[in-house]
């Protein structure tokens, strides 16, 4: 069995000041999101439109995909279809081999992370340079991104400085973000200029026009795509939207929800390859059609990957992205990943307080916390929870369905906590970990109520 969220989170929170910093920094991003959202009186209407457009797209997806394919092909783009991660990686590899390509730059694409494209190509002796600054940092460190929008949010500038000193020969101990970013700019400009192939993700693909939109703040997707003779854009099939005018809704929602910016610096619309350029689109399923069949979970496919649910989540902020052990972490990852591998990701829907904050900030109104709760039920009925959890749940079930026993146990609990506090204040009680146990009340609410009701009468 793989290491689970709770164990990985325990490792993360061992460094308390860093955990606090992580928590506060992401909350700050959440506050910026609030400010941006509140600046638009029509914000709730926008979310409603975003949600409805995505619902409509999912309800007629096969036709929109066919329309997109036909238009993109007519625009001179080659369209490929991949059933799973393996096929996706093979298609990309085949294009690389056909051209004998050596130098590859890639901008941020969570789909290629999900498919483990870099590792696949590396096994075949091909090196890919990630060009988003955060992604380059974690790539140097041989780590996966810990956040889908802010890949290196788990690191401090001292860590980045040490990494750049090792790989880019920057001055030892120079932690100035301006200096470090400049070093990356120089290093990556060389990579862009030499590149033979650019791989990018896709934020939105437009059925009506056969084009696609890629959003970045750094300009790295454009630097690669407009330089390299070959451009491959990789997308999950749920990236589709019916019409170009719908971009207005999604571009207004995306950056505001993600970082609180009114829009990303660059929102580039690709429709045709430039002269002598080859442009490919790989449309990937990889479990998505299965998720589409799950009525309770299908609207997770509406996600536009803004990460607002990460930034607001009290569990994500205090456990870090790596504790989710999957490419897409956070609340949305916890409802997407059980579909991909229920057994390996059975822990994720439990890594939540079900507080519902994720659902409240989601720009396309995905009912994330309800889906987390529903996944728990599916996972338990499929038998993917630990025996101890199953037994304790059975016990609770018994207790809560028998009021007399419940009251008796409550009384015993209160008494024993008063008389023998060491019975609960010890390391064998997991609720005692990192917590003080509360002072037990003298009586239960029920006893108090019965007594006071009488005295009022």
């Amino acid at each position, binding site marked *: 069995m793989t290491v689970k969220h709770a164990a990985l989170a325990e490792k993360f929170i061992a460094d308390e000041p860093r955990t606090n910093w992580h928590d506060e920094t992401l909350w700050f991003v959440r506050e910026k999101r609030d400010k941006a959202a509140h600046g638009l009186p029509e914000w709730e209407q926008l979310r409603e439109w975003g949600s409805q457009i995505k619902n409509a797209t999912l309800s007629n997806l096969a036709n929109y*995909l066919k329309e997109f394919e036909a238009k993109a092909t007519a625009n001179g783009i080659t369209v490929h279809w991949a059933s799973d991660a393996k096929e996706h990686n093979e298609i990309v590899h085949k294009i690389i081999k056909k051209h004998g390509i050596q130098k590859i730059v890639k901008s941020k694409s969570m789909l290629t992370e999900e498919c483990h494209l870099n590792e696949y190509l590396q096994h075949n002796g091909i090196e890919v340079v990630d060009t988003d600054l955060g992604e380059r940092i974690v790539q140097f460190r041989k780590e996966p991104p810990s956040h889908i929008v802010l890949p*290196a949010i788990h690191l401090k500038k001292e860590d980045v400085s040490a990494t750049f000193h090792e790989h880019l020969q920057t001055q030892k101990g120079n932690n100035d973000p301006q200096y470090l970013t400049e070093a990356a700019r120089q290093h990556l400009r060389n990579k862009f200029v030499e590149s033979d192939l650019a791989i990018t993700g896709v934020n939105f693909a437009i059925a009506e026009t056969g084009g696609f939109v890629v959003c970045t703040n*750094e300009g790295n997707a454009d630097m690669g795509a407009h330089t390299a003779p070959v451009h491959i854009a990789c997308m999950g099939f749920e990236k589709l939207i019916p019409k170009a005018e719908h971009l207005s809704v999604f571009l207004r929602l995306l950056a505001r929800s993600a970082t609180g910016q009114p829009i990303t610096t660059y929102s580039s619309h690709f429709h045709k390859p430039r002269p002598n350029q080859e442009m490919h689109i790989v449309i990937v399923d990889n479990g998505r*059609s299965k998720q589409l069949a799950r009525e309770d979970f299908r609207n997770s496919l509406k996600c536009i990957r803004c990460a607002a649910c990460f930034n607001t989540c009290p569990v994500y902020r205090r456990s870090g992205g790596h504790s989710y052990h999957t490419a897409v972490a956070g609340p949305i990852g916890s409802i997407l990943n059980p579909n991909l591998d229920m057994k390996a990701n059975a822990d994720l829907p439990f890594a939540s307080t079900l507080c519902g904050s994720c659902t409240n900030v989601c720009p396309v109104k995905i009912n994330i916390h309800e889906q987390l709760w529903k996944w728990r039920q599916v996972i338990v009925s499929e038998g993917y929870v630990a025996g101890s959890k199953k037994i304790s749940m059975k016990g609770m079930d018994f207790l809560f369905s028998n009021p007399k026993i419940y009251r008796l146990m409550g009384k015993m609990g209160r008494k024993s906590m008063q008389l023998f506090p060491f019975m609960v204040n010890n390391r064998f009680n997991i609720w005692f970990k990192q917590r003080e146990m509360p002072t037990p009340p003298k009586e239960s609410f029920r006893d108090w109520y019965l007594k006071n009701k009488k005295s009022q009468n």
Partner: protein
Amino acid sequence: MSARENILNAITMNQPEFIEIPVIDSSVVIQYDDVYAQFKTVLESIGGKTELITDITALKEQLTAEKENGSFVVNTISALGEVDEQVAFLSASELEKVEKAYIKGTIGVAENGAIWVYESQMINRLVPFICQHLVLVIEKKNIVNTLHQAYEKLDVSKEGFGTFIAGPSKTADIEQSLVIGAHGARSAMIYVIE
């Protein structure tokens, strides 16, 4: 069966019952009293600069002076004099040396400070991204309230490429500290013609 058929069949079988696309009524969205003032405020908050000019010829002198100084400046605007058509054929390593580029934009968006640029306006797709400093010129009458009005006016598939640019390239990937000048232009100066 091919992957294409498999995927499309699975989707057809699994997709929910048909739902109509909603009508987006852009009359309910925000309207600014002064679109230029809003555009300027937002753009400056995201690291760009704006200046109102009465006549594009005011920029002509500046451009000529910069060219005479020997710095590699690219002009793509015919109203500013000779257009540097040759950039269409320059390689990335040559364009990497471009100090400044002057490009005309089609539409400005007040709510977010973005400017739409068609491929034909940049001549080479790489120019607005690879130049060290970017100068964009738009007409005041072409500033709209929000993206809804922008998309009503644009035909995004008219050309092979087009982009919204909102200020200079930036990143906050190191400890959330904002740094201007990640991979693209280090500065964005927007001249708005009255």
